[in-house]
């Protein structure tokens, strides 16, 4: 279980870290100053979650790796995030739809983690994160509604974003040996168990946004086992450049 647990926490931490890195790319490029601030806020929250989770993952692993060792000295094949969060930002519509799809999942996952009593350290991190992601979820849902029910152009654009991103959502609900072990240990229900509520909530948002829920059953997956899109390696090259150029330096 110890191995699986460390692996499981890495997945949570990498989801948060990779999405934070993507959102931080928006800095100075937002559609309005207020939204620049909001996206940085969300990125900061996610980065805080990532730091806590990676620190815990490193402790559980027991090899002396801290948050920075895990963030800066793993290759893309060793990252465990879902593909959805590593996709390039695209336009604001792509970013906000990705955020909504992820936030709705993150809330459910943190709710479950915060209420279990098997792993109290993880529960404490989840309880703090839950407050944050609930706010993120409200923010992204509100924007999806505004864009979907805004102008003709915004409706068209955001529907395209949704169609493009939808095939990446099924990966969130996949289970494997790691998630099954976590479920048996009582830390977290199976990912599949979140599907119904997630679908219900996302459909409600899309309906209010006057958007059509894609029918696609395509399944783009691989992140949890380290098979990523072409984009992640570039992201990491940028993120890791200083640590890799000056190994052993303190910053």
């Amino acid at each position, binding site marked *: 279980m110890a191995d699986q647990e460390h692996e499981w926490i890495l997945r949570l931490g990498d989801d948060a870290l990779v999405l934070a890195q993507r959102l931080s790319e928006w800095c100075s490029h937002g559609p309005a100053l207020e939204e620049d601030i909001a996206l940085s806020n969300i990125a900061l929250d996610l*980065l805080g979650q990532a730091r806590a989770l990676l620190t815990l993952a490193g402790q559980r692993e027991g090899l002396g790796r801290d948050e920075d060792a895990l963030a800066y000295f793993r290759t893309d094949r060793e990252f465990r995030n879902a593909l959805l969060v590593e996709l390039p930002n695209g336009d604001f519509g792509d970013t906000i739809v990705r955020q909504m799809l992820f936030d709705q999942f993150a809330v459910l996952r943190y709710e479950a983690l915060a209420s279990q009593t098997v792993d109290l350290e993880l529960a404490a991190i989840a309880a703090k994160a839950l407050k944050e992601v609930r706010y993120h979820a409200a923010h992204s849902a509100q924007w999806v509604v*505004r864009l979907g029910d805004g102008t003709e152009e915004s409706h068209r654009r955001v529907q395209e974003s949704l169609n493009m991103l939808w095939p990446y959502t099924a990966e969130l609900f996949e289970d494997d040996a790691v998630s099954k072990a976590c479920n048996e240990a009582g830390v977290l229900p199976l990912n599949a168990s979140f599907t119904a509520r997630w679908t219900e909530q996302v459909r409600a948002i899309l309906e209010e946004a006057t958007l059509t829920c894609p029918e696609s059953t395509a399944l783009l997956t691989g992140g949890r086992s380290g098979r990523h899109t072409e984009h992640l390696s570039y992201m990491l090259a940028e993120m890791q450049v200083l640590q890799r150029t000056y190994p052993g*330096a303190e910053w």
Partner: protein
Amino acid sequence: MTQEMDLNQRFEAYIASDQKIEAKDWMPDAYRKTLIRQISQHAHSEIIGMQPEGNWITRAPSLKRKSILLAKVQDEAGHGLYLYSAAETLGISRDEMLNALHTGKSKYSSIFNYPTLAWADIGAIGWLVDGAAIMNQVPLCKCSYGPYARAMVRVCKEESFHQRQGFEIMLNLSNGKPEQKEMAQDALNRWWWPSLMMFGPNDASSKHSEQNMRWKIKRFSNDELRQRFVDMTVPQAELLGLTVPDPDLNWNEATGHYDFGPINWSEFEQVVAGNGPCNRERIETRVTAHENGAWVRDAAAAYAAKSAERAASQTSAA
């Protein structure tokens, strides 16, 4: 005596007795224009300043540094927001101000037209540029225009945190590996003189000074503030073990100040005129972000209008 003269006299007397002018108070046109120019330039500087620093967020060398830098750049966006709001109280809209920035009619601090070439530049900017900004801005907390003064109180609180984090980055690098110390020295070499230029032209050639002093928009001269900055910063450079790139720098026992070498004002004028290393990129980035965001702002406005309409028809139906 005309009514205008009467108002003017009362206005000047009011300011002379250290009272605050508020948005609804009568004020001379020139006072209003000067403030709009100054506050909007200040706001533009905050948001253009996000770019050179934002340049290193994705490459910050630890997650802690990344988080501090992201928070700092976010603060600068917040400063821009408070300042645009303060300027709006004078009867100009944010759109008008942004338009003036995008078309080059309105300026921003020239310092942000220099590139951030290394991580150490993030340290140097926090230490020197935020440090110089504090020198300039603390007196503005007592500016005669109330909304500006109050915005500056909030801004200054955060600026001192910015300066500390910058100094801490420099300290870390200076105590680090030889390559890191070299990186810190190189950043100081590149940012020192532009930081001194941030205080503006020498007093002898400064255009707006005298009236702004009387109106209590400005309380100290450019040269006074520059001297204070040098006096404060040189000992800090010594503490870091770095060399200030000025062969003429010398402690003057008689004056109790540091003497320093002549500033290259032709470089300053070049950068102000738009020929600095990054002028074009900074504005282009800003304009592109604004243009790419147009459909989003339009959608938000359309949605707000629809929602208001729905709410109204619900009330009238009820």
